[in-house]
């Protein structure tokens, strides 16, 4: 029979867990969101990933490897979700991901427009961009994560950024105060 875990031991484990994954949770959510383009699904993916991290915490000794482990786990959870539930990749209405501040400034309008453009990217282009910009992955790291060649990753990043930055150029340029 296993020994019950005491309150002190649990608290210590939770502190270690917070130290290990706490700083990564926000970016993990952002990456999950751009992977599945659904806020609630992203929350579920992150919750599931962190739950697994909790269970395997004692085996994750290398702090540097934690980030890559979390991303790999989340990607697999995302893939399982589609295998299990046979979710169809349909055009989804963009969930409201604004922070609800009611900001009607030009900056908010631009952000909203960029969100639409990012949503419109194919998965193949959107994911490497998210890995690079949100998680700071290098081309080599993206290639390893997505099981692609470096040249394929570079092509996708170039095309994604070109599509989006061309769109940014199209937006009317207004500066605050005039």
């Amino acid at each position, binding site marked *: 029979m*296993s020994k019950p875990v005491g309150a002190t031991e649990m608290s210590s484990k*939770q502190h270690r*867990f*917070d130290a290990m*994954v*706490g700083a990564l*949770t*926000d970016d993990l*959510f*952002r990456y999950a*969101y*751009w992977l599945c383009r659904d*806020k609630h699904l992203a*929350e579920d993916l*992150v*919750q599931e990933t*962190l*739950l*697994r991290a*909790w*269970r*395997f915490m004692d*085996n*994750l000794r290398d702090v540097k490897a934690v980030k890559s*482990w979390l991303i790999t*786990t989340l990607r*697999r*959870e995302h893939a*399982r979700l589609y295998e*299990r539930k046979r979710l169809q990749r349909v055009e989804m209405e963009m969930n409201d*991901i*604004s*922070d609800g501040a009611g900001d009607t400034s030009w900056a908010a309008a*631009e*952000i909203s427009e*960029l*969100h639409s453009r*990012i949503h419109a990217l194919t998965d193949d282009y959107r994911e490497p*961009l*998210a890995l*690079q*910009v*949100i998680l*700071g992955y*290098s*081309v080599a790291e993206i290639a390893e994560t997505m099981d692609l060649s470096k040249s394929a990753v*570079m092509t996708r*990043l*170039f095309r994604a*950024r*070109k599509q*989006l*930055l061309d769109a*940014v*150029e199209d937006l009317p340029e207004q500066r605050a105060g005039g």
Partner: protein
Amino acid sequence: MNCLDFRRAYLTDPYNLEAEQVTHVRECDACARYANKQTAADRRLEAALRIPVPKELGPNIIFERSMRGRRSLRVFAMAAGVMLTVAATFGIALYGVGSGQDFGEEFKGEFIAHMAHDPIHMQSASQLTGQQAGASLQQVALEMGIDVGANIDNVIAAKRCDLDGHQAAHFVVEEEGVRATAFLLPNESLEQSEWMDNESGQHGMLIPTKGGVIAVFCPERQMLVRVGEQLQNSVKWSSS
């Protein structure tokens, strides 16, 4: 480096410029202006990608959720106990009520997911020998009241795991570079043997026995069947 190559490289990875690219932007005014313009645009792109995060997301919620699952199981067990007592009082025969839970479709996926995420599956045998020493299969199994016999060879890692609330002795066998993974789950039940074909590159067998369930996974069918039969013949559960 010419301007076209520089601009293409800059659009691909503005965060990691190579020495040649840095030299070019210092020497070419047009590309320097281009780089400044793209950097500003890239900042706006980054701001768009960094969406707000729900306030309730975080490790604390994970901890609460994992504990909530265990409380649900205890409530279920209590309710089942009450039900049995009432039934016994009235002499009602209850059929099909066992001490364990049958695995549904979802739980089969849990094995695959566990293997995918458990770090021992991401390491080579030589790495595991050093790090996982001290927890032989016999030790792990003994702690869980399981006798695995003496004939399970080539075990490279063994540990006790929690699979979504179910305790399992989890171990890995490697022969000529091929790994078979097995889970021994005491006090669990299964109506009949089940096969899983090519789930994420693994074939699997779930084997019901008196006292527990044996689950084996391997990318090669022959090895899968051999290890499965070996375990079925040698594993003894303390509850049976």
